[in-house]
């Protein structure tokens, strides 16, 4: 019984973004790469699933430039994943190409009982790859999941919808579940785990071997730019009552937002 966890490597949230001179993307020099925070919840849930189901095997999988992307898999292995696969692919693939690469590789490994992912990657917030992987695997999915429970033939999950609404959903297995914050508390990798992960042989798949043609790339991004500089803040002065009335006046008659 295989559980696949799909990971993405993203710049650390503290990263100050710089743009390349030709605006084709961001300058990645000096960036600290981390596992997408939502994907950590997915790894944790997979490892918890394995602890309850000893026959389960957790496979971490990622698509990206091999030399760098492999580090995210070491993190997953250190947290308790059994095996890892990197799909060596160029930077800048769109969601549809990435999802096909992940789904094809999962199929080549014999398919999954459960696929876990984060609900989105914090780099482009596209929130697309999980649903697309599920579609290409022909299995049901639920996104934004903050509660997960496995039964014999299905999964019972809770989805966080807009406005604090919770949807309780039963998914027949195999299925894909995309994690939200709150699903669990990801564990820290143990020292023995880190040592073991370092020695683990990571399976490599070339993106070019998967038969996904360039016409599968449907979306391209260009013109990367930083947000325009904001004018300096208008600090209101005087006593509290005066500051408050100045603010109300400004919001009503200057900014006209109230």
């Amino acid at each position, binding site marked *: 019984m295989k559980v696949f966890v799909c990971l993405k490597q993203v710049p650390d949230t503290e990263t100050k973004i710089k743009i390349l001179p030709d605006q084709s993307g961001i300058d990645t020099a000096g960036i600290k790469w981390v596992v997408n925070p939502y994907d950590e919840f997915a790894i944790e849930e997979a490892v918890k699933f394995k602890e309850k189901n000893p026959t389960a095997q957790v496979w971490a999988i990622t698509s990206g430039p091999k030399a760098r992307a492999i580090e995210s898999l070491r993190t997953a292995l250190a947290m308790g994943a059994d095996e890892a696969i990197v799909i060596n692919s160029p930077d800048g693939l769109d969601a549809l190409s990435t999802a096909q690469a992940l789904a094809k590789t999962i199929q080549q490994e014999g398919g999954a009982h459960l696929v876990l992912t984060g609900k989105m990657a914090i780099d482009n*917030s*596209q929130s697309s790859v999980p*649903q697309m992987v599920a579609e290409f695997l022909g299995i049901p999915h639920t996104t934004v999941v903050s509660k997960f429970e496995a039964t014999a033939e299905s999964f019972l999950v809770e989805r966080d919808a807009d406005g604090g609404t919770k949807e309780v*959903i039963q998914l*027949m297995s195999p299925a894909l579940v995309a994690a939200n914050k709150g699903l669990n508390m990801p564990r820290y990798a143990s020292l023995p785990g880190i040592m073991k992960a370092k020695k683990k042989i990571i399976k490599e798949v070339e993106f070019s071997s998967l038969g996904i043609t360039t016409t599968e790339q449907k979306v391209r991004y260009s013109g990367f730019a930083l947000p325009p500089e904001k004018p300096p*803040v208008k*600090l209101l002065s005087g006593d509290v009552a005066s500051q408050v009335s100045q603010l109300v006046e400004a919001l009503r008659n200057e900014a006209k937002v109230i």
Partner: protein
Amino acid sequence: MSKFLVFTESHNGKIKRSSQELLQFAAKSGSPVVSLILDPAAEALGLEAAHHGATEVLFSKDADFESYNPEVFTTALVEAIQKSGASTVLASSSSTGKDLFPRVAARIKAGVVSDGIEIQASGDDLKVKKPFYAGKCFATATFENTAVKMVLMRPNQLPVMAGDATKTASQSELSFTKPSLKTLIKAIVKGTSEKLDLTEANIIVAGGRGLKEASNFKILNDLADVLGATVGASRAVVDAGWVGHSMQVGQTGKTVAPSLYIAVGLSGAIQHLAGMSGSKVIVAINSDPNAPIFQKATYGLVGDAFEIVPLLAAEFKKVLQH
């Protein structure tokens, strides 16, 4: 000429403002606009969609659309796209839109862009600007190798006028074959708040560690009630368990762009600033004049939040009653 399809959502028996934005945007292009309404109350909404610019309404009143099930909605939307011949398909980046569009895009092998903040359509050309790294930078998406272009737009990005009650649209019922379901909706537990979700709110009042403890969020709730605002929070106070994660604004929470964002006792970590700097007007209330939030703020009040916020609520109450 391209034809638009707008996945039209409703709330309390009215078409959501975010869907009105898209219908009106599409109508302005002069192209035919199909409004797809999947809702047991679809009949009452069709005319409203026409008022906002739909030239055709495609609807289904099937009871299955009472709640969102990805499998049923995917089948219906794919059928609607194919039946209508639409080449540009729009929805709001709502909980439903974000879940549904990528699955449909995978089924019909279409390009999809989410979280758009600007959209330009001319002829067959479509450009969508969206934030990256929660707003630390922006880029423009273009489409290729795709007959259908799918776009999820963030709410509150496009202007909305009053609907034109003289406009009408042809209405037809969508027929589709229901798939055998592997996704079963067992229960829907409505949120306690009647307020709009943070991502759709026009005014947000957000609090951080400066509020000192969870119970002090009451002063924000009181202010929010006066303004009809939604309350948000920083990651620090969510992690501390003061409020739920659905209230978190920032790179690992929600990215928001309201007309007015009032940040109270919130210093403005880089992840938080990324998530809210798209707001039109930002008010910062903080006792520390060096807090990074002041670099993004339009108006700043340096002082004690516990003094300022209740006064502000009282002052707004006074002026809004007139």
